[in-house]
């Protein structure tokens, strides 16, 4: 059986936990509860004729008092950087977080989930912002943990990427 460790990283409150809950349990919680340490879930996905078990490490978000912990990321096969499309600073911090993560695990398959697309009126990112993400060599998907839009595609793409089968 193929097992892949996938880490969810990003600033606090971007929706990392909600994305995992939507992907694994098809539910969306309206109550915000910050993650302490790491919460671990798993889900099997089918990539071609292979079944891959994704071990989803939902890391506590970066905030003013602590950074993303390299010790949680070591051994990861893939990363989902989560950005909140209604908070521009979460995109600005993405690149700092990425540098730290690269230092811990090197270059591994990664994808950016630009989350909360259901909040259209509060959206702060431009097409140019998202193009800039792409230009840095990062695949990105617009997601909504609330409606489920783009969620399955994001995890599936990363699962394929960890097996070297994703399309850019």
């Amino acid at each position, binding site marked *: 059986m193929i097992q892949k460790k996938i880490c969810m990283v990003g600033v606090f409150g971007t929706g990392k936990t909600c994305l995992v809950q939507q992907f694994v349990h098809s*539910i969306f919680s*309206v109550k915000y509860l*910050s993650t*302490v*340490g790491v*919460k671990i879930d798993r889900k099997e996905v089918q990539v071609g004729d292979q079944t891959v078990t994704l*071990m989803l490490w939902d890391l506590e978000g970066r905030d003013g008092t602590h950074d993303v912990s390299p010790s949680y990321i*070591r*051994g*990861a096969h893939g990363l989902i950087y989560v950005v909140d499309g209604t908070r521009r600073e979460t995109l600005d911090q993405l690149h700092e977080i990425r540098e730290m993560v690269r230092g811990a695990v090197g270059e591994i398959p990664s994808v950016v989930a630009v989350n909360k697309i259901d909040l259209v009126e509060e959206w702060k990112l431009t097409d140019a912002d998202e193009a800039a993400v792409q230009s840095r060599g990062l695949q990105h998907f617009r997601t909504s943990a609330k409606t489920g839009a783009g969620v399955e595609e994001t995890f599936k793409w990363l699962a394929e990427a960890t097996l070297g089968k994703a399309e850019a």
Partner: protein
Amino acid sequence: MQAIDSFGLTDKGNVRPSNQDNFLIVDIHRSVDIRHSSLSADALANRFGSADAHLFVVADGVGGGPGGDQASEGAIAALLKYVSETVGCFNRLESSKEHDLFERLEETVRDVDQSLREEHAGKRGPAPATTLTMVLLIWPRAYLVHVGDSRAYVRRRGRLQQMTRDQTIGEYMISMGAWTEEQAARARPAAALSSAIGGTELHPVVGLVDLEPGDSIMLCTDGLTKHVANDRIETLMEQPEDVQAVTRNLVSEALAAGGSDNVAVIVVTARK
């Protein structure tokens, strides 16, 4: 080796006729028996005396029936058996082995759940059930397995954070947006467990946190948290070095505030 201080206490409270809460604190050692050696006693001193891992568990038997105590006791005993057989040989787990550990711990929880159901088959009424909140500490990593409405907290640099979420109908309805906090407070079924070992649903949650010297972990059953709010718990844990005093103070506070339920508390502190 990091020094770990810990203390546990349980009390039946002021109302309940018996205590169905249980707790367990275990130091797990690698078994080394030096029969004969040319090394000096000094060279060997303290090499094998420290624990390699520590297990902390609280469990709250559900329902008040005679099976509740057996359920919480049985769940802890089964976990202890698994952990003592398999975990003592690990110092630091690699990521793939960590996933195996989580799966095995979850399996153990499911096995206990199954055995409780089988023992109860053919008998009247709901099967005995229990909550279970467990931390396996292989320094610095604390692995958590959680079922029900007992809780685990981490205290770091004076700030208390709740690691677990109560698996109750009320919490579920609030998180789904179906109830407000006020509605949940008024609704009778709000305190019913949405997940328990031996219950109608079982959804173990697993996680981990890396500790630092000076950090504390507190595990407790709802006999504490239904009477003592998180900010008050934070205050009572201001001197976590004295684990005995903190544990006693937490239990005393719950009793003084009514003691309507059994209570079990474990306080663990990593020395600075």
